[in-house]
């Protein structure tokens, strides 16, 4: 479906933020914001929900802890009661102190790597992926707001009018297939 995209470029994060506020309060939907660094406070304005990656990290950590416990119990207690100084490991719980360091390290290992991999997959940022920012300057010092006409209930003229006094530096319109 053919669509028209409006890219409004700003030279300052605060200006973009107040502009986004104005547009959103007038019922315009902003589909994306590209910026060289995180703009604090932009997420609630344009409707980006908080990420649940933290919960994922916790679950990965829990998986790591479980695996480490099962593994060490099997290696050191079930399969071969390793005899150290005449004191074989007959139960896991009674020897748990010696197993804490590895349990901790493995928990952190799984949580950190699990979260990092999930993060890269969710973002679709992987080696060989093509960059999608509309202008190379958005990774330097420019901030771009992306508005798709198909998302809006109002016409292009109305958006143009709202944008007019927001202090953008450049305005680009692109028709996509």
């Amino acid at each position, binding site marked *: 479906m053919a669509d028209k995209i409006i890219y409004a470029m700003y030279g300052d994060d605060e200006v973009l933020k107040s502009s986004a506020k104005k547009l959103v309060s007038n019922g315009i939907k902003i589909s*994306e*914001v*590209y*910026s*060289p*660094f*995180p*703009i*604090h406070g*932009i*997420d609630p304005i*344009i409707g*980006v929900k*908080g*990420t649940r*990656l*933290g919960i994922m*990290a916790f679950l990965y950590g829990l998986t790591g802890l479980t695996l480490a416990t099962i593994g*060490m119990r099997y*290696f*050191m207690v079930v*399969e*071969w009661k*390793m005899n*150290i100084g005449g004191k074989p*490991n007959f139960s896991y719980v009674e*020897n748990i102190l*010696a*197993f804490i*360091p*590895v349990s*901790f*390290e*493995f928990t*952190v*290992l799984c*949580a*950190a*790597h699990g*979260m*990092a991999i999930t*993060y890269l997959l*969710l*973002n*679709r*940022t*992987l*080696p*060989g*992926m*093509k*960059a*999608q*920012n509309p202008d*190379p*300057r*958005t*990774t*330097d*010092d420019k901030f771009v707001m992306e508005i798709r006409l198909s998302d809006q209930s109002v016409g292009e003229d109305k958006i143009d009018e709202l944008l007019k006094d927001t202090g953008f530096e450049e305005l680009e319109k692109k028709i996509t297939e």
Partner: protein
Amino acid sequence: MQKEAAIREPLILGHKTYHDVTEDVCKPIEDKAPRMWYILFSIALVIGLYGVGSICYLLGTGIGVWGLNKTIGWAWDITNFVWWVGIGHAGTLISAVLLLFRQKWRMAINRSAEAMTIFAVFMAGTFPLIHMGRLWVGYWVLPLPNHFGSLWVNFNSPLLWDVFAISTYLSVSLVFWYIGLIPDFATIRDRAKKPVAKRMYSILSFGWSGKAKHWNRFELVSLVLAGLATPLVFSVHSIVSFDFATSVIPGWHTTIFPPYFVAGAVFSGFAMVQTLLLVMRKAMKLEAYIHTKHVEYMNIVIMVTGSIVGTAYITELFISWYSGVEYEAYAFLNRATGPYWWAYWSMMTCNVISPQLMWIRKLRRSLLFTFFISIIVNIGMWFERYVIIVTSIHRDYIPAAWSMHYPSHIDIAVYIGTIGLFFTFFLLFARYFPVLALNEVKTILKGSGQSYKESPDYHKHH
């Protein structure tokens, strides 16, 4: 935008814009390398290759080429291992612990400190690996089913804890570092003009586009990784200290070891960061971002951790007498007055006295003095490990077995070689990677930049 007190010194000097930050960091990467870089790189590479050659010789001949003997089974190699791991503690401490404490001054130094951490841990890992003698069976440290029966690696052994600690620390630090690098690689990619460079940075940047949702995730991932890395930093050197503390050797068997080793690690790590950054800021013209205030903050960390280390030395000495254990008492008496007295007193001078000079404001704000002290601290911390390891075992329970450790030329070559390799990696990093966390520095430009802080409406309430 976050405001801070007017009397706080600005973290970014001069009248920088967002674009200036990009320019200042990307310029050294895009320009031709200065002649000095080639000279330093060649020297580092030659020394590094000498080390690699020595390691090859060692692997071909066996670890008999080291200066070890029947009494002293651990000496030079483990000293270097602990020394490098210690140095590798500053980077993650800076980026993780200081992130949790919201210390903004970390942003100018975290990238290069983390790079240093990773390279230092690489160097550290070399020593236990080559100490195995048979490097090709190094995978035996993994819990793999054994061909000869149901024998597994010993999870009750601190040496195995160390395997897990070091590999977790290395890989998590690497991930933490790289996640932060992705957006900055994207900046270089979008500026690159040469096709090869563009292609390379395009691959390295993973197609990063700076979307709002991605930044949202980025910030959370950084925070959670910092939360995970913080206990990790403390655990790694604690576990390294367990290698000694859980043994029954007088001089090693002490409960003070974990905190004492962690403080020592941070102490030496920050010293190495100072050594590298004082040169780098000058060579790469980053004086506006890494300036006296940053150096002063780091010197305060050195002073505090140095004082903890000093307290630990004295506590150890006191307890060895107070415990009433004659072997323990002798171990310490022998350290201070025995044949290795010079190593002990070098350690004491470098680590206990020199950080105390940082109480003087003038000295801790002097770049030249800081550079000098950072070298002294690194030497002192090497001696600390040497003293702990060698003096505790060279005179054991049977005087007939008493011995001395003399490093062989292979011992020395491997050590010097790791320093060469470390600098080779660091120079490559400084040449091709953004040495400053661009995206992070830009977020504090308005809150902590000089021109913003000096502007009349900075302290008005919005």
